[in-house]
Each structure stands twice: as structure tokens, then as C-alpha cells.
């Protein structure tokens, strides 16, 4: 697939860079990587990172060292939907272990794996700031909170339907 921004994505990229003073365009790196990840199938290939480096006029290594530092950037292909389930203290005391086990069993994958149909990836993450609404997981931009087994079933059905309709 193409690793160049289309017109809409390029407009957004320019908006991100314009927030910073002249010559400080490297500051746009984190937002630019989010944009690249969203634009290129949910992960950052070496080509995608090199492309971002060329746009920001910085060395590729400056992009690699950032992309590998932050947990939100996927450096390997992922499924169409990534279930990022929180496992830190407050979620744990509210039963996140049971939810994680249930997702593993239902989707028949382990953390870090993607279902055979390419729809779902399970990723275990640390505290996402939803401690009062635990257990929880993030799917794309959305937080799914107060998780129960039933709710997990309906979330899976929701995204399966979304994939079929697109």
C-alpha cells in the first residue's frame, strides 16, 4: 500500500506543523506519527517512518527512536481493530483479569496476537486513566468502560458488523 499522505492527510500534516515556530518542525513528530499510523493501516512500517522523517526534514533515526519509545505506536501489522485492555492496579482490583481471560478465550488469541480473519488484535496496556470506570479497554479513539463478559460479546459483535458493512 501507498506510504504517502493523500491530500486530506497532507492538509492535516501541514496544520500540525504550523503550530510550532519556524525551524522547530520536529516538534510535530508525535502527532505526525499518529497521523501516519491512522493513514497507513494502523501501524508504522520502516517506509512510513522514513516518509515522516523526509517530511519533517529530520534523520530517520530521530523517528525510529521516538516510535520505539512510546507505547501507542505499533511497529508490526495489527488487526483492523485493536483491543487495548488495561491491566494496572485499579483495573485489576475491579476484575480486569477475568475480562482479559474472556477475550483471550473468545477470540482464541494471546496478547500481541491477531485473529486469523485479521479483525482483532489483543494488546495489554498499562493505566489509561479510566480507573473509576474499570475494567476498561480502548478501541481506536473510543474508551469502552465498565466491561463485563456480556459487554465484551456485544463489542465484538459491534466491530464485526462494522467490518462487514465497510
Amino acid at each position: 500500500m501507498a506510504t504517502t499522505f493523500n491530500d486530506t492527510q497532507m492538509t492535516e500534516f501541514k496544520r500540525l506543523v504550523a503550530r510550532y515556530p519556524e525551524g522547530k518542525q520536529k516538534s510535530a513528530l508525535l502527532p505526525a506519527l499518529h497521523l501516519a499510523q491512522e493513514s497507513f493501516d494502523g501501524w508504522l512500517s520502516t517506509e512510513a517512518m522514513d516518509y515522516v522523517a523526509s517530511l519533517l526534514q529530520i534523520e530517520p533515526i530521530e523517528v525510529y527512536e521516538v516510535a520505539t519509545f512510546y507505547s501507542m505506536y505499533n511497529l508490526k501489522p495489527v488487526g483492523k481493530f485493536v483491543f487495548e485492555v488495561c491491566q494496572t492496579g485499579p483495573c485489576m482490583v475491579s476484575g480486569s483479569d477475568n475480562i482479559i481471560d474472556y477475550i483471550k478465550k473468545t477470540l482464541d488469541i494471546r496478547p500481541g496476537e491477531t485473529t486469523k480473519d485479521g479483525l482483532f488484535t489483543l494488546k495489554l496496556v498499562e493505566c489509561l486513566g479510566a480507573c473509576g470506570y474499570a475494567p476498561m479497554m480502548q478501541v481506536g479513539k473510543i474508551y469502552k468502560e465498565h466491561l463485563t463478559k456480556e459487554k465484551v460479546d456485544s463489542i465484538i459483535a459491534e466491530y464485526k458488523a462494522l467490518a462487514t458493512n465497510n
Partner: protein
Amino acid sequence: MGVKLLLDKANVPGIRTYEVYRREGGYRAVEKALKEMTTDAIVEEVKKSGLRGRGGAGFPTGMKWSFIAKPDGVPRHLVCNADESEPGTFKDRYLMEFLPHLLIEGLIVSSYALGSNDTYIYIRGEYAWITDILEQAIEEAKAAGWLGKNILGTGFDCNIHVQRGGGAYICGEETALIESLEGKRGNPRIKPPFPAIQGLWMRPTVVNNVETLAAVVPIINMGGEEYAKIGVGKSTGTKLISACGNINKPGVYEIDMTITVEEFIYSDEYCGGMKDGKKLKACIPGGSSVPILPANLLLTTAKGEPRYMNYESLSDGGFATGSMLGSGGFIVLDEDQCIVKNTYTLARFYRHESCGQCSPCREGTGWMEKILQKIETGKGEMSDIDLLWDIQRKIEGNTICPLGDAASWPVAAAIRHFRDEFEWHVKNPELAQTSNFGLQHYADPIHVPA
């Protein structure tokens, strides 16, 4: 009902929009500050209020502002720390999601006071939908003339930009945040120089938490002296507490810091008591990095006096018998919770979040996680408990930034107060896989367990 200064309008329908926020008296603080006050007078007012940084460290905000260097011809910046990542803490999220204009208003006043023409909100990357809410609020404020060039005809220009992080707890540390805002790894800087002298792009910078900057609005509206009358001692004003864990009503509450911990947990106005009628075992009162306390020391100090929800009272007794108000992330654990497992998940968190710059933290957090996992899975030895104690002691105070301390304190406090539970795990490796140590002598002494 306690005094509410930040969340008093949170339930007004449509308060997220500019029209409703303005109709409810919003942006009065900007009018007052920009038209009637000098920048020095604003800093003075914040000093008088006694406002302390709401991110966790509790440093006096007015004093922090007064440190900012003002060399000729060098731009200065205000940066809002919205990287809320301390486990148990979700108050800034609530404030930004439901009252975005309160933060924008606080940012405009504070930017004016500090002389920041380009102000940045650094928000944790996962709060993606809040980024959209903030950007919309900024557009609305701009359209209404509160942002942009020559605001209210005063000659003051200000723009606010929102930058998403990439998922890293360490970026809540202000110099790591600045590095990240510059498009780099979130490695904390060695201080000095402090950000007030050389911060963002080596320019004078002030970094303040979301709640701190929102609190500037009521301070300007009511005056610093009036604000300081709320609360007690050096805990002035109100504080947002995000309560979670095994309670009936988890959520974000605004308190005036004069209530007791007991009232906060058991009254219907706040947490509404323990969930499912269980008994209170322990609590981490100020975000995951502050010391965990068993119920008896949480509700009363070592001297047997009631403990209050404020900076001084929660830290009464030091780390021997007290804890900290910290970020206000209030994590409640009931009788069914295992202290070893809870400590293990927190140790795993800190290992995951260590930036790796300093050896004691990079190596030590990994060792602590492994040893705790060993004890939790029934493979621990008695000597592991002393080893854990030794490791945490060697991390604390030996790192560039406070993450080392933040990783050490939960482990130290768990061993200090719950050593017999760790020993029980070691002595009963199989039993510990299927049952918990329970309450033993840690129960709440006021609400006596049946």
C-alpha cells in the same frame, strides 16, 4: 454540600459549548484580568490564594510563576500538563471532557500573566476524543475573540495548541514532557537549568497541571484572599479527587479539604461506602506512587486523631505511618484484595514506564517486578522480601527524575505495612494461588467488621 469552585456548573446542560459556558458567567476572569489587572497583580493574586500544583507535587503555583525568566526578545511559553497517567487518577480527563472552556479560560489568564503568546496543552495520546473536544473549544473561543490577535483590544496575542503524546507515563514529568513536545523520547532532563529559565526550545517555560490552571479562574473571580479562606492551613481552595476501586460510587469529586477520609469513603455525597458491603482493607490515597495505608492508619493518624483529606493530614506521620494527597487518585481496596498482587501490577507498571536513562530505575524496576511476580505465583523465598526492600531503597533518590521514587514507595509501603501478608504468600505458596490473606488486623477500626 462542600464548596464547589471548579465543578459547580458541570451538570448544566450544554456547558461544554461556548454559548452556555459564557451565559453561565464564563470568561469573566479573562475580562477582569486583561482589562483591570497587571500581569504582576495576577501573579500576586495566585500567590495570595496559596494554590498548590494539583498534578501531585503540590508546589506553590504563584512561586513557580515568579521564577520565570524574562530575557529581552526571547519568547516565553506556558505548557499545560494534561498527560494524566498516574494510576488511579482521572480527574483532569473529567474536567477537560465536561468543562473544556474552564481550562481554556484559565489558560488565557495564565498565558497573559506569564507572557506566553503560544501556549501548548500536552495531552496523553490515549485521550484522543478529548483532544477533539479541546480543539473545538479553542475554535469557539477564537471565534468569540478570546484568543488570537489583540485580545479585547489589549494588544495581547495568544494561541493555544493541543499536542497528543504517544503513550508514556514519564511525560507527566515536566522536563520529559518538554522533550516530548520537542518531538523526542521522553527522557527527563538534568536540572538545573529549570524550565523557568530554559524549558521548551530552551526558552523560559512554566508547566502546570490542568486542574491548577483551571483553579486560576475562581482565584481571579473571587480574589486570592477569599480563595485562601477555603480549606485549611496550607491546603487552600478545593481539590478534585478521582475515587476508584471497591467503592459504591467511583468518580470525580470536588472537596474543600476539610472533610475526613472516613466521610469521603462512607458518605453518600462521595464514595457511598464499600461495594457489596465488604470491609475496607487498604487505600492508596493519592495516585499509585504514594504509600499504601492499611485501613486503621488511613482513617486515623498514628496519634489516633481523625485523618483529613488534605496535604498535611494525609502526610501526617511521614512515610512510617502516613501517605500523601499526591494527584488525588484515591484507590480503595476491600478485604478480598491481595496486597502482593496489587503491588506486583504497580511494579510492572513502573518497569514498563521507566525511560531507561538511570540504571537504578531501569534495572531496579525490572528486578522488583520479577521478584514480586515470583512471590505472587508461589515461588517466593523469605529472603526475597528483604531483597525487595533493599532494591527499592537503592532506587529511591538515585535517579534524575522522581519516577524512581514513585516506583520505590509503593513497594516500600506494602512491605512496611503488610509484611505478614508477603510472608504468608511465601509460607503458603499453594494456598496463595486460590485464596487471599484477607483482613487479619488491617480492618477499619471505626466501621467494625461484623
